[in-house]
């Protein structure tokens, strides 16, 4: 069965780019526009990987991670953070809360992100 990836980001253009590249690799893609929707989606769809943006309205990446880790399924979910912020404090804060990895969007090509995901999901 195809692996499922949940993309949580408030920017439509970024969701579409990631979605397009991942679907081309055969993954099933579901999307959410903010942390609130993302949390609901994650628990419902139980994706194999969550690509999570940090800065979003309503509930941001930090908040969603915190709440996700309190869920029985969510506490083991694989989460890769995507952001434009690159300060060490933010990164370590995120990783300490259970983030799997941290990617700065402008530093990575789409193909490189896809490769990384392929490595994580096997």
């Amino acid at each position, binding site marked *: 069965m195809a692996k499922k990836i949940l993309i949580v980001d408030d*920017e439509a*253009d*970024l969701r*579409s*780019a*990631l979605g*397009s*590249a991942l679907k*081309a690799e055969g993954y099933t893609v579901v999307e959410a526009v903010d942390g609130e929707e993302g949390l609901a989606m994650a628990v419902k769809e139980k994706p194999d990987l969550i690509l999570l943006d940090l800065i979003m309205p309503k509930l941001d990446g930090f908040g969603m991670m915190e709440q996700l880790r309190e869920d029985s399924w969510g506490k083991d979910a694989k989460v890769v953070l995507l952001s*434009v*912020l*690159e*300060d*060490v*404090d933010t990164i370590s804060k995120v990783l300490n809360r259970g983030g799997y990895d941290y990617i700065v*969007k*402008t530093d990575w*090509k*789409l*193909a490189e992100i896809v490769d990384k995901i392929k490595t994580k999901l096997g």
Partner: protein
Amino acid sequence: MDGKPRYVRALFIATFIFVLLVGVLYFFLGQPLGEDYLEKFQILLLSLGSPEALSRIYLMSVGTLVALLISVGVFFAATTKDRANLLAVKLLGDVLSSRELLLTLYRNSPTPYVLISGKGIITFPNEAALRLLGGEAHDLEGKSVFDFFVTDTEEHQKHLDLVPVRFDRGVPIKDEEMLIKRLDGTLRWVSLSLFPFKTPGGNRNGLAALVDITKPKEIDRAKTEFVSLASHQLRTPIAALQWHLEILTSPRLGSLNPDQQKELATIATGISRLNALIGDFLNVSRLELGTLIANKKSIDMQLFIDKLVDEQIQPIRAKELTVIKDVKTISLISDERLLAMALGNLISNAVKYTRPKDRISITVKNVGRSIEISIADTGLGIPSGEQDKLFTKLFRASNVREEIPDGTGLGLYVVKMAVGVLGGTVSYVSQEGLGTTFTIILPQ
């Protein structure tokens, strides 16, 4: 004033002498004053035409003049002491009023001033200083001005400890930023200027000016935070552009003809440059805000330099540059990010400003307890008149502004700041048209 009655007395004496002298003069030179005055006077008038009479009139005039001079002389002699006293009193009055003026100016100056003893004890704070330090004169009694300076970093503490030493050595301090803790515990930023001087008695004292720069600093910080926020915001659309461009140029959506590929390549380069620019702004703002704290770990210099040169491989190949690396097997304990900022900028500059087919050399070696990193190019060099402005923000030398319009002027500013945070120094030698060598020295 006790001079007055003396003046009047002297005036009387002078007048008396004058009258006396004239009387004596007239007695001896004039006709004897007998009984028949009128007759004598008539005879005198008749005899006025005679040479004898004329010579007498002449003698009388001269005599009167001399008498006048003598009287004036006596008057002045009699009043010398009083005039001297009056002058002294007036001068003293002038001095006292100007001292009063000076004290008034000092007390009410909008700039906080404190006079300090040789040990730094506050002896005379002005009103503004009392307001700044947050107390009355008696609250400051016995306190040293140096006790008010505080710091939150280890590096700054060392600098702070040197301030009383420099004062003790008679070294003036000009416009140095200090953090002070007021009596109520609140903090304020000041620009400190300290002027040591010796009193007539030979004791060292000092005049400290503490200009409150808290507000300008806050504004500067807000501005930098804005740059940081804006730069981050700008990255989101850039990421979207880059990824969609990547999809467009991938074979999946169909192949493109060479012209289309060329156009898209240009667009990709443009977006890449935009991204680099924003990266520069972010680096600058982080360095200025001090949010880039050195996270030191062991760095293999050979691998590090190789990586940095690799990042420039495209322009290096395009310009057919020779890159000579002389990197001893050295491990440097430092912060990777900051080091990459410093060396990365210098290497990319070297690549940018060197002519095609020319040479760049990078050397890393141990010098005593420090590491010395040199990046030498055989490029355009820096005009000698502009060398002292080189590390300032947004500066680009005149000789490159036209030839190589692509440059933010932030690169060397970032280098200087990054090296500063790492506790090192950066310097260079350059000759226009021949090349430049930048040298960074970092403590181990």
